[in-house]
């Protein structure tokens, strides 16, 4: 069965994934909206940067985040200046890394949904006295609901499933940065296969259930949808 250390990792994983997903939705929505609407020449570069975590080995992303956030990195210097210390091997550092790692899973479905809405409902709203923010909240958000659901669920599930970035940036510190995937690794290293099974099996069931809900309720192919 699960011991108290396992339960602590589950709770920590849930916290990281919830906080990261919230941040990704807050940052990803304006970013996806801009990407869906802009004719700027920066669009291609931004799309490529957002999609990078999909193809990079997590160790590469983790390594550069470590360098950037570390005491000699540009971001690390700023956080030290601000009296926040450095982020690697802390819970906030883990959240920052998770956001970078999972953001394409939030931005891409949102961007696809926003693009699919097109210009027409926005123009109709404008002729019916709705200003830009009003239109976004009352026309775009309801019409892009499948995109928001897909983005939130995939972002959350992908954060739960991360390992390489977590290990590089977060390390393996109990109650602070030790998430489920790392704990499974610890169990296997210690040849505690029964304990590993409980967590690994649980993660398998969780991931399957999430994807099953996505495919049956949204009736779209979320992964194919976001890769196009």
């Amino acid at each position: 069965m699960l011991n108290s250390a396992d339960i602590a990792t589950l709770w920590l994983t849930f916290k990281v994934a919830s906080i990261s997903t919230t941040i990704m939705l807050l940052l990803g929505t304006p970013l996806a909206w801009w990407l869906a609407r802009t004719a700027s020449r920066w669009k291609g570069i931004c799309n490529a940067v957002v999609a990078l975590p999909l193809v990079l080995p997590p160790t590469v992303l983790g390594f550069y985040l470590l360098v950037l956030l570390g005491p000699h990195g540009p971001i690390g210097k700023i956080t030290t200046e601000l009296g926040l210390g450095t982020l690697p091997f802390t819970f906030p550092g883990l959240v920052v890394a998770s956001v970078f790692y999972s953001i394409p899973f939030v931005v891409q479905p949102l961007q696809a949904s926003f693009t699919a809405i097109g210009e027409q409902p926005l123009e109709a709203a404008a002729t019916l006295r709705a200003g830009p923010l009003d239109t976004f909240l009352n026309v775009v958000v309801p019409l892009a609901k499948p995109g928001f659901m897909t983005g939130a669920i995939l972002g959350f599930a992908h954060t739960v499933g991360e390992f390489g970035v977590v290990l590089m940036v977060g390390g393996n510190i109990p109650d602070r940065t030790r998430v489920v995937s790392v704990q499974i690794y610890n169990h296997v290293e210690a040849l505690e296969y029964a304990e590993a099974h409980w967590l690994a099996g649980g993660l398998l069931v969780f991931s399957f259930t999430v994807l099953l809900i996505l495919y049956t309720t949204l009736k779209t192919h979320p992964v194919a949808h976001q890769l196009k």
Partner: protein
Amino acid sequence: MTNPITARFDLDYGSFRLNVDLHLPGTGITVLFGPSGSGKTTLLRCIAGLQKAQQGLLAINGEVWQDSERGLFIPTHKRALGYVFQEANLFPHLTVKGNLQFGLKRIGNSRNHDLAHILALLGIEHLLDRTPDRLSGGERQRIAIARALALNPKILLMDEPLASLDFKRKQEILPFLNDLHQELNIPVIYVTHSQQEVAQLADHLVIMEAGKVLATGPLSETLSRLDTPLAQDREASTVWQAKIIGHDDQFHLTNMGFDGGIISLPTLVGKVGMPLRLQIHARDVSITLQAPTATSILNVLPASVTGIVDDDSGQTVVGLRVGGQPLLAHITQKSARLLNLQIGMSVYVQIKGTSILN
């Protein structure tokens, strides 16, 4: 104030340039007519503020919506207009009722007393709880019209509202538009490339081509101008406003009075005094120099020739005036030579057929 609408725009896309300077009446339906690519929809979008012309001056009944010299541009959502798109463009996530109330909520008037009247006029009261995906194309377009009118706009802009509908659905909506015509006291600007809709709906006509205005003026005057492609077209026609002045029961005829005489038609249902629009196709008009004494054609009227234009396929377009009403006739160039038609000549026109438009 005879021309309460001023619309002056210069919009340059490189491959296309819209350059118009229009003064339009403050009531009735103004139709913007022209082939696709003539800029009529772009002009409508500039009036709505959906597109921004670099140079523009737009005033609607005293309210200035754009004046580029003063750097003034009121965004669309702050203009008191109603807009009907080619596709109805209803919000798919809202019911019909939700669509109708979307704008009302934003003008702080969720209970518009006219709304019930508008719903009745457009025959859509029974659809309020449906979602747009469960409506026919004609129903969707009627709701879009109601949604625009519900806001009591100062001007109604309609962009080919019938173009995406089949013939049957068009016939379903045209009567409603005709009724609106009688009821509305705001100006309507209506974009179309259909001559039938021009004849049926327009009070004022603007003919556009390649981003420029070819002709603008009251419907019958503009239709009968010889310098527009419309007058040369096989379907060319003129439209007269007439009134029923009496019924002839013996011969099953209705007599219609117009500014210039009387014209008889097969019996119409309608009270004496009822106003009607008569459409007379140019191909149905023939010309004689003397009043014919023996002819099967009932409507023979004295007229004077106001213009003559030959096209390059053997046809002559003759502009005429019957009393106060302009009229077009298409005859062969040979006939025009044989009659030796000259501007200013007094002739007789024989009208073979007319159609009633409302």
